[in-house]
């Protein structure tokens, strides 16, 4: 939109004053990118709505601050049977939901049965799109005693503990779901540090502190979330003091935030990966040499510095560096080298110019600046003789196309993904596993490697993190050499906060966490 292009230049020279506005001590106002679609954790699929969930609900286990290491939350301890098929959780006692009902094993069973059993009496409060992907290995949830719950699995799933940190699995109050049924999505009740007060549609959602929170009473009295759909509007509102926190400052406005007194710029690398899928089933990219050539041809440093203005770092494989235990950079690297690309194309014997179709989305969750990035990639490929034709789709149509697979229609397509469970076990089987070849999964380029498939399966049966990590490192080496994608970048999450805000740290999972520790002077 012309508006977005124009505004940074307009705003730049004038806005040096400190955000003043309507700041009230103890009240934090957060700017969201859209009206939340629901506040039922099981229903949600968008990162924006999920920003509120950490305030309202808790998970069984959670990640420690600034890491992907687990620590107790509503469960105080857990163990796994020798065959890996039975997990036992001991629960925190004395915790109450905001509606006064007790948190116990029945609540855990209710939460997961509702998500997973289509015949559950409250299954119609869904749909719950993410649940089968994350918790599909659970066969049965068993109440042993009020403070002990067990999960019996249908197959080994070493990624399950990490999956219990996810928003989808946050524990809901059974009493509230039974009372409100479908309206629960508008009247959420959990055990979290803040209680739901009101939802003034399209204007604000108000939460109030839960003084009895088991992990310590919140420092704030109130949290308010405001939907501000236009990104320039969001920046303006932040600079004028109408909101205290905004996430994902547009690249063009970062300098401005950094030089505004009274504003603090935060950034945090996270579990995000952005790539270009290559169609491995059709010429030209059925030829590995051509796929490698495409990787050499694209200048990833220029992309991250000039287009993303440092909000991304070049990536070398399918797993983001934030997952330290599973990540390696000891893989085949494709540093920008157009001459090498041309040589590889010549070596392949394929005649130039090669004509390819490239699917690009106009926008989309986690897609950063997809059109500008697509155009830069197109220019780089054209320079080495891969004549790239861009086809642009709006996000909804794009997802449909990609989900059906590149097939005979396209040679390349953009995509990005979040590893928000901090675990490759939930992402790779969707995108690089042979049987997930689209339309069955989201392996749009239909990459097939017997070795990768076997390693992905075996990783689910190894529980030692280091050993499992080494399997994923092996997978990265194979995938990097095969180059089924052009590896582009990992996003760095950023936020602008007012200096009056304390205790707010960005977590590598990109969730809003430990909200009871946030304060506002």
């Amino acid at each position: 939109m012309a508006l977005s292009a124009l505004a940074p230049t307009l705003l730049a020279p004038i806005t040096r004053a400190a955000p003043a506005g309507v700041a009230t001590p103890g009240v934090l106002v957060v700017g969201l990118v859209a009206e939340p679609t629901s506040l039922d954790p099981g229903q949600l699929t968008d990162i924006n709505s999920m920003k509120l969930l950490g305030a309202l609900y808790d998970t069984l286990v959670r990640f420690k601050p600034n890491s992907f290491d687990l620590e107790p939350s509503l469960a105080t301890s857990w163990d796994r049977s020798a065959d890996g098929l039975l997990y036992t959780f001991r629960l925190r006692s004395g915790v109450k939901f905001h509606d006064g009902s007790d948190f116990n094993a029945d609540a855990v069973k209710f939460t997961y049965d509702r998500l997973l059993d289509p015949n559950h009496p409250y299954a119609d409060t869904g749909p719950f799109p993410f649940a089968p992907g994350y918790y599909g290995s659970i066969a049965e949830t068993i109440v042993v005693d009020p403070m002990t719950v067990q999960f019996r699995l249908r197959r080994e799933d070493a990624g399950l503990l990490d999956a219990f940190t996810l928003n989808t699995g946050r524990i809901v109050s059974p009493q509230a779901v039974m009372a409100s049924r479908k309206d629960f999505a508008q009247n959420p009740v959990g055990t979290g540090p803040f209680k739901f007060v009101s939802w003034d549609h399209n204007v604000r959602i108000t939460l109030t502190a839960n003084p009895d929170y088991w992990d310590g009473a919140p420092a704030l009295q109130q949290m308010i979330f405001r939907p501000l759909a236009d990104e320039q509007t969001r920046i303006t509102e932040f600079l004028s003091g109408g909101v205290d926190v905004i996430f994902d400052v547009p690249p063009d406005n970062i300098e401005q935030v950094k030089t505004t007194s009274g504003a603090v710029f935060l950034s945090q690398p996270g579990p995000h990966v952005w790539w270009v899928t290559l169609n491995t089933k059709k010429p030209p990219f059925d030829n590995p040499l051509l796929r490698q050539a495409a990787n050499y041809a694209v200048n990833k440093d220029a992309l991250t510095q000039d287009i993303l203005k440092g909000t991304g770092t070049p990536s070398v494989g399918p797993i983001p560096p934030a997952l330290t235990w599973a990540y390696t950079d000891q893989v085949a690297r494709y540093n920008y080298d157009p001459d090498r690309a041309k040589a590889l194309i010549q070596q392949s014997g394929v005649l130039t110019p090669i004509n390819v179709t490239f699917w690009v989305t106009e926008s989309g969750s986690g897609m950063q600046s997809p059109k500008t990035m697509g155009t830069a990639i197109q220019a780089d490929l054209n320079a080495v003789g891969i004549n790239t034709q861009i086809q642009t789709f709006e996000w909804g149509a794009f997802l449909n196309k990609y989900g059906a697979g590149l097939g005979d229609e396209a040679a390349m397509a953009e995509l990005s993904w979040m590893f928000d469970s901090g675990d490759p076990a939930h992402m790779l089987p969707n995108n690089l596993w042979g049987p997930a070849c689209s339309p069955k999964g989201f392996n749009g380029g239909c990459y097939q490697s017997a070795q990768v498939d076997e390693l992905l399966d075996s990783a689910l049966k190894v529980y030692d993190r280091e050993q499992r990590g080494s399997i994923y490192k092996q997978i990265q080496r194979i995938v990097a050499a095969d180059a089924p994608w052009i590896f582009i970048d990992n996003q760095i999450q950023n936020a602008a906060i007012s200096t009056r805000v304390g205790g707010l740290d960005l977590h590598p999972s990109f969730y809003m966490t430990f909200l009871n520790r946030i304060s506002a002077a």
Partner: protein
Amino acid sequence: MQRYLVQRLLLVVLVLLGVSLLVFVVTRLTPGDPARVLLGPRATDEQVATLRVAYGLDQPIHVQYLTWLGRIVRGDFGESIQLHRPVLGEVLDRFRGTLILAVAAMVISFSVGIVFGVTAALRASSFLDRVLMSVALLGISLPPFWVGLILIITFSLVLRWLPATGMFSPTGGGDFSDVFAHLVLPAVSLAVVPLAVIARLTRANVLEVLSQLYVRTARAKGLPSRIVVVRHVLRNTLIGTVTILGLEAGWLLAGTVYIETVFAWPGIGAMLVNAILQRDYPLVQGGVLLVAGIYVLINLSTDIMYLYLDPRLRHA
């Protein structure tokens, strides 16, 4: 006259039926699937298929249309796919915001526009006339969203007199003075173009009426200038103004799309844009139908107002 009204009302029903068919077909022809957009890339094809069945999207399109139409006749507009809320409530809630904004903009544009136009006409070819008409030309030429941004920078970021966005203060608020403070900038941005149009047309109309014989007669029989202008000139320029009212009301409804986005004003324009992007079929259909209905009713009431203002039409 009664027959004329009945005919017009029948026509309204026909137009709305046409709109409903058009919006239904267009949303279905747009590539992209609400179930896939809602569930995101991680959902399996099975889940997408299940959701399609739940929303009736697996039915043939004519069955879907007739089912939808049947429900609307009974007052049931369905539920928004994205927001999990009834469409009618959401649309009416949002329309309230648009209405406040559009009415405020209309009041500003008409009061100021008419004063500008009449002043310029009475002092035709003077320096003041040239200044006013230059301002009007500038107003027509400026894109409303740009005017909005400039107003935000001036009055919110630099002077800090008025809030930048939204309809209420983030904490508390919601009373009249709070909404009024939030309303000033978006309403002015939205009013600029129609104000300029009205000023120019009013000037032309007044000049034309001033040259009429009955005005000269009125002056000749010694009526004070004020009475000549108010009773004889203004009254006879009203027909033209009412025509503009009908046209500009439609423009104001359309213009709110940009202004609501720039000012994060909770109105129906911004809602519709988002609903289209999310493939929220029920919300798009309900919203468009409502806006079309309002538009048709404004045109109808404009025509009825002609009958009131111009006795000659009543007997035609």
